[in-house]
């Protein structure tokens, strides 16, 4: 064949393969500069439960769908809607009898984002809320900016958040989402932990590996690569490096350092209201190293008046055998991804089948009869989330899109 043509085709092939190497990573969200919150004071705790609910959306915007779930997380107000899997994260403040909110909106499934501000005026329900009284109606006026223009819209309270018969865990995968989900923080990072709550999670899953000198750190992949870190010269596995080396040489995609498990649990206990942490074990001999930290931080949470479950993940038979061999099930709760026989043998209180095994109706019911909670993983797609929620069987979903699960769970 013509040599030139061969070269052109080969070149094209290399270009095509290279083009596929382009990575989607963490992306910044716009920082508000609207100054609505200047000199505002913190919103009273009385306001929050009364204000939470499902709101209809009216106005110039159609990209949020017809309704939105509004839910508080500490001083932050989050909104989750059905269309485009969009969500909003807002700072809050109280000034002159009105409530002000400003922050960013984002479509979870794409890169579109922008600023948003909301105002709840005293005559539209703020006055009643501030004295702890449920108003007859709540009307929130808002303005939303995209890259080109701005839109005015209005939200009206329709109904309270759905109340379900049992506790449900919305578990943020890799502390809240993967790098490819374009969140404003790296997966498995300290910043991602409080962000997961703003995205709708009330629990997190994270990945634990040991460094060469036995320090448990959060990291998902088997190998260091530019998917997770910035340094192209760092090759090999986490266990090839001491913790000091990793700290000195490695940064996550958003510039943070690879966190230790201890640092992460400190953030969970001290800076969030998360109810559960699922430690997904990567590699061998990890369980022995993290078990003392599990006890320490569950106790620390109890002292601060929080009920926090920290679960040792058993993803495979190797870790199952290690856990059983250590004979620690009494004081070290575990979550087992293997079948029910393994769950029973490990005396794990939690079972985590993959969603791709199907709805598992009878098997989940049986485990619940035996007092075992069942979390399905990793459920991201809106239709699948609806389908699995409709069964009303599972005790929680592990997801990269807590905002999607939160909307479906609280609005239906």
């Amino acid at each position, binding site marked *: *064949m*013509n040599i030139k*043509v061969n070269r052109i*085709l080969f070149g*094209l*092939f290399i270009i*095509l*393969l290279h*083009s*596929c190497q*382009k*990575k*989607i990573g963490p992306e910044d969200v716009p920082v508000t500069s609207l100054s609505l919150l200047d000199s505002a004071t913190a919103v009273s705790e009385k306001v929050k439960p009364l204000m939470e609910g499902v709101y209809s959306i009216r106005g110039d915007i159609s990209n949020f769908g017809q309704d939105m779930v509004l839910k508080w997380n500490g001083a932050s107000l989050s909104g989750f809607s059905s269309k485009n*899997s969009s969500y909003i994260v807002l700072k809050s403040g109280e000034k002159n009898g009105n409530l002000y909110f400003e922050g960013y909106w984002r*479509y*979870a*499934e*794409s*890169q579109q984002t922008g600023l948003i501000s909301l105002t709840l005026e005293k005559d539209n329900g703020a006055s009643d809320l501030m004295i702890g009284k449920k108003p007859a109606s709540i009307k929130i006026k808002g303005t939303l900016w995209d890259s080109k223009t701005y839109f005015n819209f209005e939200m009206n309270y329709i109904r309270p958040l759905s109340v379900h018969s049992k506790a449900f865990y919305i578990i943020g995968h890799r502390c809240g989402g993967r790098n*490819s*989900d374009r969140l404003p923080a790296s997966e498995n990072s300290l910043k991602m932990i409080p962000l997961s709550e703003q995205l709708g999670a009330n629990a997190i899953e994270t990945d634990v590996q040991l460094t060469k000198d036995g320090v448990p750190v959060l990291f998902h*992949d088997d190998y260091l690569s530019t*998917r997770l870190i910035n340094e192209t010269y760092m090759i090999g596995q986490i266990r090839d490096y001491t913790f000091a080396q990793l700290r000195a040489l490695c940064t996550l995609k958003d510039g943070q350092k690879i966190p230790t498990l201890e640092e992460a649990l400190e953030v969970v206990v001290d800076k969030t209201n998360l109810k559960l942490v699922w430690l997904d074990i990567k590699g061998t001999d990890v369980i022995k190293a993290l078990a003392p930290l599990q006890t320490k931080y569950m106790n620390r949470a109890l002292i601060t008046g929080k009920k926090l479950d920290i679960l040792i993940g058993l993803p495979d038979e190797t870790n199952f055998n290690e856990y059983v061999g250590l004979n620690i099930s009494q004081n070290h709760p575990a979550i087992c*991804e293997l*079948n029910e026989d393994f769950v029973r043998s490990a005396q794990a209180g939690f079972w985590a*089948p*993959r969603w*791709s*095994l*199907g*709805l598992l109706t009878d098997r989940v019911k049986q485990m619940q009869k035996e007092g075992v909670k069942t979390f399905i993983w990793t459920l*991201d*797609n*809106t*239709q*699948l989330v609806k*389908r699995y929620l409709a069964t009303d069987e599972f005790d929680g979903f592990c997801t*990269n*899109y807590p905002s*999607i699960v939160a909307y479906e769970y609280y609005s239906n």
Partner: protein
Amino acid sequence: MNSIDAQDTIEREAYFVYPKAFKKWHGAFLAGASITRLPTEVVEEEISTSPVLTAEYRLGLPKKWNLCLKLSSNYISNLGALHVSRSLINKKFALALGGNASMWFGHLELQAIKLKSYGVILSPQLTFGYDFRKYFLSVAAEVNYGFMRTFSNEEELATFKQNQSLFAIKIAIEQPLWKTHSFLLFSKLNYAQFYYQSWLSYSTLSDYLLYPEFGFAFII
């Protein structure tokens, strides 16, 4: 025999992708393989390379219509397609307009995965090519519309619509070897929200990502 003599013995229907019409009821069979790079934004690194074996049969119909049947498989993902086109220009520069109707079926049963999915893809396609004597160069463009349904343990889990889920450009070079037998090399750039070989990922991203594909085949 020198190369010019060898060229003279080549019959001019030694092509498959090149859109010039075959003689009525003339057929050609193609067997080959391709490899597609699936983006790691939607699949795990371990399964980001997807090889597929392909067999196709092209038949010349009256009035410059073409019919092509295609089967491809890598066991997990299997596709059958019917392609109908009409050659509108039949000179050295050739052009055909047509479309594919494809059905694909995916299945995987492992300890933690028991899934079956099937889907339908409809794709209008425009192909043009040029006969350079020593080889045929063809470029095909297509857009995909479709849907997919997913089941586990015979229970339906979801149906996904996939409108304009893929835009693709394929560049193919066919070199005649002897008689009507040829060797085909192609690069295909799929720019897709959904690509059937990555059906197991159930990605939530709505971005269009690149799925480069490279293949070869023998036309028998």
